[in-house]
């Protein structure tokens, strides 16, 4: 028996590369938005995680839908490890910044300017 409630749009019926890329782009944009607009360093870091993960999605998607000889899974794993390491270092920096400036607000830490 076949249920046919409605005609599923073509672009939904068969999820393809484009969908993943769109998701990835949305995720990237959100991450970027977080990085650019959040004042709290923690939030910025979280945005960076989103950016990395959107890249991961891209890698995986390209690995799935194309025949490019790309060891994408490996790179994705590598990125995850890198993200974890980066987060550790970044959080350490954040702690130091907090000790130095008594704040984790990015706007107020502008000694680079001088």
């Amino acid at each position: 028996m076949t249920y046919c409630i409605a005609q599923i749009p073509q672009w939904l019926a068969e999820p393809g590369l484009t969908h993943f890329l769109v998701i990835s782009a949305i995720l990237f944009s959100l991450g970027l938005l977080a990085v650019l607009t959040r004042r709290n360093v923690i939030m910025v870091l979280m945005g960076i995680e989103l950016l990395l993960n959107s890249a991961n999605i891209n890698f995986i998607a390209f690995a799935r839908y194309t025949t490019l000889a790309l060891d994408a899974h490996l790179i994705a794993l590598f990125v995850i490890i890198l993200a974890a390491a980066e987060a550790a270092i970044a959080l350490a920096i954040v702690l130091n910044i907090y000790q130095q400036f008594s704040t984790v607000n990015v706007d107020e830490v502008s000694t680079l300017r001088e």
Partner: protein
Amino acid sequence: MTSDTLIQFALYILFLPLLGFLLLIFFGKRLPRQGDWIATGILGVTLLLSLIILFVKLLSYPAETFISQFTWIDFGDVPFIGPISVELGIMLDNLSVIMLVVVTLVSFLVHVFSIGYMQGDVRYSRYFAYLGLFSFSMLGIVITHNFLMMYIFWELVGLSSYLLIGHWYEKKTASDAAKKAFIVNRIGDAGMFVGIMIIFVTFSTFTFEKIFDSIAVGTIPFGSEAWLTAAGILIFCGAIGKSAQFPLHTWLPDAMEGPTPVSALIHAATMVAAGVYLIARTFTIMTGDALMVITYIGLITAIIGAVIAITQFDIKKVLAYSTISQLGYMVMALGTGAFTAGFFHLVTHASFKAGLFLGSGSVIHAMHEALHKKHDHQTDPQDIRNMGGLKKKMPVTYLTFLIFTLAISGVPFTSGFLSKDEILAGTLGFASVTGHYLVPVLAFLVAGLTAFYMFRLLILTFHGDHADSSRENDIHESPGVMTIPLIIFAALSLWFFYSFNPFGASSGWFYAAIERPMSVVPSVVQPVAAEVFKDAVHHAHTLAMVLSILIAGLGILFAFVVYHFRRVDADRLKNAAGPLYDFSYNKLYFDEMYDRSVVGGTMGLSNLSKWFDDTIIDGIVNGSAAITRWWSAFTGRFDNVVIDGLVNFSAYFTGFIGLILRKFQTGKVQTYIVFVIFSIIVFFFIFRTL
């Protein structure tokens, strides 16, 4: 005595006066009596040595010529020219030996006289030092054996003459006269130098003997006898300057500004005789044309000197012009070929003219003291109108002066008679050989004039009454140091020193010693010409003697009539002569003529060159300075505006850019990220198509 000893003596004679000069110029003021005894003693020694040389040479070696020389510069064998070497050396022949005695004798007596005359002078020792330098230079001319040394000593004589004329250089006239003498002499010397160079270029040597020998075998400058004539006349130019011949005679009267003994030494007996000596030395290379030029120059000089001397009133000026006239006589005599007579007159003239000058020095000395005693500084002590009647006051001076005057006038029993007579005979012989009868006629006229003006001088100075009787008693005879030289000169002006026959010198020792040298010029057919000339002179001799005595007597008589007995008024004569008198009194306007032409021309030229310098040269210099200033102002402006502008602009630009860029450096990481992303997007769009 060997020739080596003679040469050695000659060297002593030459260098002792130089030693004296060096001693006096450096230590003169510190020596006792300021060293006059050194200078005089040295000259005494040289006189003694000269006399020894004279006697030995004339008695033992009458026909020989001693030469001692060394090579000064040896150029070796010069390509295209041949061997060139410059020798220095001395030569003793009869001519130079006699000249040595003349120079040292006059110099010695002048030294003695100067001890009295220059007493108390400001630069007493320097005066004697310069006398020594002069003697050295003059002796150098006399005994040299080459043109180079001749020229060097010639210039040294000019220098020492300059120093001695300008001895009282505080007086403007004296320093001017010194300059004039030097410059006028230089004009003649320039000619002489060119002449010597023509000779040197041809023969590559300066030595007389070699040159004469080369000409004798037919080598003449540039293969043309005209060049030899030119060389002869150019060398004679030196004599024109030194011996004050027309047209360069104007320096000699002015040179009377020097001390009177100097005039006696330099401008009567020695320096002016150097020119005559030069002609005698180079007589053998003179061509017939050159000798003709020499004859006429001498003749013109003799007349000019005599004519001017008639009207002068300064005692020394009269003597100066008489010297010019007598020098003209000698030069003329050499030119006519009366070689021995010309040189003989040089010797006799040296003693009586030096005596005349010293006598005038004695007179001036006495006048000066008398005027000084009366504090009269207006009256000129040298003007013969202020004298007169000195006969009784100064008997020695008068008597010697009389002898000198008789000698120069050519009265028998004097030396002057002997030599003048020979010269006149020579001119007569010359005229009969060549046909130039103007020469003897004018020569006799000059003899008459000489007798006239010399006795005019003598009478106005010593005879009659003194011009101002108030100072008559203050005039005294000069001291012994001044009168003894006068007496010696007076003795030498008598005939027996030169020939025992008072009416003819040709039998005396002088004529035996000095013989007319044979010309080496190929075209002059010498032996024949000389014989013909000698015969002509011999024939003319008696005539010349009679005529010369007559004419001299006439001149003396006329002088006595006019000035002593005053039968003819001198002023009336003067008025009768009219413009001729003015002409003579103003020295034929030679000085004015030279002032207008040469001096004026030179001044005009220097003014022109000054104007040229001021206007053109300075204009160019100033113009270039102005251009440089303008250019530097321009570059300064350019530097300030353009270069600095560029530099400043780049600085401002950088600053401006920085001002803009600093806006981007906010220090906020998030802003940077925005820029990065924005940039990535931009790049993405830019490189999209690639």
